[in-house]
């Protein structure tokens, strides 16, 4: 490992062992478990997982937006080398919407229904910049134009209910871009939209981030979205990142059986990578375990065809290729297909 200082120069975001827990009657439940990953400026990271895997909570944790009974239990979050954990509320407030912006899933719910678009945009500018209202309005107008909203001047004076879902999400994206943040966290922002609109927005987000040099974390359950968008991928299961690597590595030669399972249950055509076309979908057997009652060791082992008694202690970090890491006792060899009860054959 090189010295932290040298690494921080190229690294926009560096997350280490980030852990978020929820207080419940039956004791604390860990929703985000020792997450570690990095993001470079201008890079797009896909954070993939099923619902309940802790991917949305990761987004909230990065912005310190975890509501009680949840709390961030430990770890470190550094933005351009600056430690964010433990910052006072005032500093967080200054950071949010300025250096780190977030976009939410449902555009029908994220905009306040009783405030006009201009109000909701101008307040975001004025919260972080000493500008006049006219200057802020000018910025808002420019941001709407940038995300491809026609007749931006008129839209500014509209209420959210007067816009379509796609328009509303563009407005939310424009709000996120207003103060030219270093990092944007997008929590499934296209899930609620039509496929054609989804594709447009994906393309635009990609372009905007490249142009502005902002880092983007795209949270989704949909591997096909990640395939066309992200540079690197993190796969989450039961609160942990079980595999991470470049998009090509993770999608083409997954090392973790869970990633393989996710790929096998995604229509191949949607992945646009061409491999395994025409094969039948194979869903992962069983269901994700509740966070309050995780299996011991590797949380995936009850659903895993490769599992054996070795999987009961916590799994080690395997590194099948440079930059690709998987949390698994029995990682898949490059290019291997997951088949039948072959698990014991692979066991050392």
């Amino acid at each position, binding site marked *: 490992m090189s010295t932290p200082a040298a690494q921080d120069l190229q690294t926009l975001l560096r997350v280490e062992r980030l852990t978020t827990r929820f207080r419940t009657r039956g004791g604390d439940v860990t929703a985000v478990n020792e997450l570690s990953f990095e993001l470079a400026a201008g890079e797009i990271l896909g954070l993939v997982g099923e619902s309940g895997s802790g991917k949305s909570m990761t987004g909230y944790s990065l*912005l310190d*937006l975890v509501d009680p009974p949840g709390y961030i239990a430990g770890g470190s979050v550094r933005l351009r080398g600056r430690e964010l954990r433990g910052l006072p509320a005032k500093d967080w*407030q*200054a*950071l*949010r*919407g*300025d250096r780190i*912006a*977030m976009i*939410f899933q*449902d555009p029908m*719910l*994220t*905009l*306040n*229904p*009783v*405030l*006009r678009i201009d109000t909701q945009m101008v*307040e*975001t500018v004025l*919260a*972080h910049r000493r500008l006049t209202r006219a200057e802020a309005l000018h910025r808002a107008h420019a941001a709407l134009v940038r995300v491809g909203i026609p007749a931006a001047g008129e839209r500014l004076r509209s*209420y959210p*209910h007067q816009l379509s879902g796609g328009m509303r999400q563009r407005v*939310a994206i424009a*709000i996120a871009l207003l103060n030219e943040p270093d990092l944007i966290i997008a929590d499934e922002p296209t899930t609620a939209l039509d496929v054609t609109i989804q594709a447009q927005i994906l393309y635009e987000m990609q372009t905007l981030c490249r142009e502005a040099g902002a880092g983007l974390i795209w949270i989704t359950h949909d591997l096909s979205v990640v395939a066309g968008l992200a540079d690197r991928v993190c796969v989450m299961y039961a609160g942990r990142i079980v595999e991470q690597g470049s998009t090509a590595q993770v999608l083409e030669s997954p090392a973790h059986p869970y990633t393989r399972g996710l790929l096998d249950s995604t229509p191949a055509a949607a992945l646009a990578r061409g491999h395994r076309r025409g094969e039948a979908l194979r869903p992962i057997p069983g269901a994700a375990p509740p966070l309050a009652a995780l299996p011991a060791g590797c949380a995936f082992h009850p659903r895993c065809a490769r599992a054996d008694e070795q999987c009961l202690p916590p799994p080690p970090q395997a590194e099948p290729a440079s930059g690709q890491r998987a949390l698994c006792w029995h990682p898949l060899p490059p290019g291997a297909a997951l088949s039948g009860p072959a698990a014991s054959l692979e066991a050392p």
Partner: protein
Amino acid sequence: MTLFLLRRLLQTVNVLFIMSLLVFVGIYAVGNPLDMLVDPQATRADVARVAAALGLDQPVWVQYGRFLANALRGDLGNSFLHGTPALQLILQRLPATLELAVSALLIAVLLGIPLGLWAGLRPDSASGKTIMAGSILGFSLPTFWVGLMLIMVFSVYLGWLPSGGRGPTREVLGMHWSLLGAEGWRHVLLPALNLALFKLALVIRLTQSGTREALLQDYVRFARAKGLAPRRIVGVHVLKNIMIPVITVVGLEFGTLIAFSVVTESIFAWPGIGKLLLDSITLLDRPVVVAYLLLIVLIYTLISLVVDVLYAALDPRVRLAGGQAA
């Protein structure tokens, strides 16, 4: 908008007509005011003369027809007791009741919204729980008994505030108002607090539950993600959303404030229309009772009209359409 107003106006006239019929027949069908008005030792001729003078010798439907024709000219008949026009009698006392009801409404809103907001933002704190427990008490306490307790504590034992009456009044626009002077405010405080108590509890509950609900909404989380100050999130994003149901309910409750002022006015000897109604009921002064009821119906329908317009002004999602009126 114009169509909407026209429709509502037509509805109001309709309701007034039906109510006048119901009230008139109801009031006139029972009891004989002559027994009350005429000296028991009067001769039959005397009684007949009084009956003819008041129009009470005619059949009910003739009396109603005459009443309606007069009502259309703004004449709701003369009070049997005072001999002056019933409407004039009521209008003379209306300012007192309006002052009382508006003061009560202000107390309920100006105290209830901050308290409800506080309790909604800190539902698990001791202060939040105390506020909510207090609001339950506010629903349970009978208004008239609270009035007595207020008099006992603040007038009798502490001697801070007067126990009744309006204080000196000043004439503006031909009506007598008491809130133009400090003495008037001293007089209105206790009765207004008494009348406000139930509405205060209501506003606290509405605001509290509205706040708790709003805080869970995505738009509040998004506002936080935008880096807005907590004061702006609560003061603009949350408040503007909860004001809609609060204004609607409070507006509609203004009518009940006026109706319930009967109780408060009789405890605090407040010379408003509630006290007048009470006296008129016990003394069978029919024209005054009828005029009071028609006025109340009119106020009710006007209030619901104002509330609808306000609602549309506050909530951009609502459009006042001609067909939406019912």
